[in-house]
């Protein structure tokens, strides 16, 4: 593409952005105040958690989150369908290996903390899962071909665990007669924690497996205890 055409497209995009900003300003001006934020804060005592973000994700709009987890799974299955992972890097040198053996347990510990703290402060399954995933990324960069994950069979079960627990809790509350994904009073906190724990594991495994970039290769140690 020649320069004038590029310039023209840039100008048009700037114009489009300006129009959008103006419309967004107009939308904010005609706004009905705090929108749903007040309602979300007012309903917080009924939700079983003290952090409004966790309440939105796991209670008010839990069904959205269920489908979001399915999006993650679809992305990983899509990556797996394109073939086997490329071999990883060569084993790390002593300094990197020592750092990894320190950082990975810390990441897992911090992930557990974030999962728990999500009940009353910023945190939760997605943040904790991201930390677990980054532990997998570190392991792969340090030479572990499979990013610290178990065999393909086990990976398949781990990546579906989060959605499975989520959907089964939903079906359970439906069969109990209170409606799909409607937590009975008093149970909310523990059901949310159960769902979030399973989701954390699934998100972590999914992200690490996605970073490996393909279907896990079988290796000789499969089946043997690591």
């Amino acid at each position, binding site marked *: 593409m020649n320069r004038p055409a590029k310039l023209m497209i840039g100008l048009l995009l700037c114009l489009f952005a300006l129009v959008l900003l103006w*419309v967004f300003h*107009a939308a904010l001006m005609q706004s009905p105040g705090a929108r749903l934020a007040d309602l979300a804060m007012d309903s917080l005592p009924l939700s079983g958690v003290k952090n409004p973000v966790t309440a939105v994700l796991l209670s008010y709009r839990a069904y959205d989150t269920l*489908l979001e987890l399915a999006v993650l799974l679809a992305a990983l*299955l899509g990556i797996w369908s*394109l*073939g086997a992972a490329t071999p990883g890097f060569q084993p790390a040198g002593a300094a990197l290996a020592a750092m990894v053996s320190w950082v990975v347990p810390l990441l897992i510990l911090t992930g557990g903390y974030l999962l728990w703290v999500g009940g009353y402060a910023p945190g939760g399954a997605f943040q904790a899962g991201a930390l677990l995933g980054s532990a997998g990324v570190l392991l792969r960069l340090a030479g572990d071909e499979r990013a610290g994950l178990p065999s393909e069979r086990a990976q398949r079960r781990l990546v579906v665990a989060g959605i499975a627990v989520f959907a089964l809790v939903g079906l359970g509350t*439906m069969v109990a007669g209170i409606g799909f994904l409607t937590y009975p009073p008093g149970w909310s906190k523990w059901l949310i924690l159960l769902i979030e724990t399973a989701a954390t594991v699934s998100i972590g495994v999914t992200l690490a497996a996605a970073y490996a970039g393909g279907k896990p290769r079988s290796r000789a140690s499969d089946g043997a205890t690591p």
Partner: protein
Amino acid sequence: MLDSLALAVTVPLLAALLVTALPGRVQTLGVIGAIATALVSLQVTVQVWQHGSLRSDPGGWGAPLGLALEADGLSAALLAMAALVALAISIYATGYFREGERRLHFWPLWFLLWSALNALLLAADLFNLYVTLELLGLTAVALGALTGQREAVAANLRYLLVGLLGSMTYLLGVVLLYAAYGTLDIALTGAAIRPGPVASAALVLMTGGLALKAAIFPLHFWLPPAHANAPAPVSAVLSALVVKAAFYLILRLWLDVFGTIVTPAAAGLLGLLGAAAVIWGSWRALRAERLKLLAAYSTLAQIGYLCLFFPLLQATPEGPARDDLLAALVLMAISHGFAKAGLFLAAGLVQHSAGHDRIDELGGTAQHLPAATFSIALAGTALIGLPPSGSFIGKWILMTGAIETGQWWWILVILIGTLLAAAYMFRVLSRAFNEAPTPRRFVTQASTEVPALLLALTSAVVLGLGAQLLWRLMGFGVVA
């Protein structure tokens, strides 16, 4: 106390989890999952038939804080179509992906796609719709690239980027609506919306983003390569259901959210794009060298017909005439769903048996694959709009509406499109029948040929003769 709306989403989701976790029994679990999903989807349609519309609140918070699932005649009709088409495709897939690595990848993605489709048709919340669009788009791309061939991967990478652009643009519109009206529920937003720059910008952004996904002319460039290079069952679901889902969403938004602010000019523009799609798509289908490419271009034209309804709906006041138009629109969408799925499945059989799908070299197909050829002919009946197909009734009401609202020029478009459709279908059939008659056996591989045949038969005969049921399902009076 079972919530059929939630089940229609969770049953295929659980099926996807099972086939992911237990790859050893993927085929058996796939068939069981497909039957279960079709049953729970049809259950929703039956309940809408009995009680009118259904609504449920997952989480029990209710709008505006929580989100809701809702089924009315429009979504129930499309849900039933999706259930039957997807069931036929599932049975076809058991024969098509008989062994090998690919079926391990097909089934989990397929159930996730089905779940996304049901979730999209039942969603009553603008942000929830965005999530379903993402799930639908990702699974469709992954399934489309399943052959692993270079052209398929390239076409689907483009499809992925186009789809992301489309859903991001849609999301921009949702953000504007939430900022201005403080709710994401479709009914509440529709009640609060006022004409102004915000509503107009949201209308343009959301329609534009979805038009990209629905391949409305001139945003169709990604569709022919993506649909023509996918495995046959995937092409069928992309053309019959995935594109239709994006179109359904445009219709839903124009009816329920932007109903009060849509201007005749906006509807006229959509009609004009539809007219261009009818002529351009039919023309390219006539010139196509490959059967699957022909089917893909014909999808463009059929989406074009659906767009022609917008200016007429806009110009017709509430009442039986408008109800007829709306039901005719759904009837055409459903007929096309069945016909195109049947056509793609049959084209897959032809391609598998001949090793190619070049139309000029299809001589003798009628002798080798009589059932597949018959399916192509039946599907063609519906694509052209010959009686007794559902699209005959659809086109008839479309033309009546055009005369009654004084917009006679759309009739010319419909006539040209129909002539071109007849030409491209007969071009295929004349090649297929050009050898001596007496086929040996009508059906050669039942698990793949029977689903194609049933889909085509439904589009050509059942929907036309049973069209009145659709009016009843949508809660309208019976056609005059």
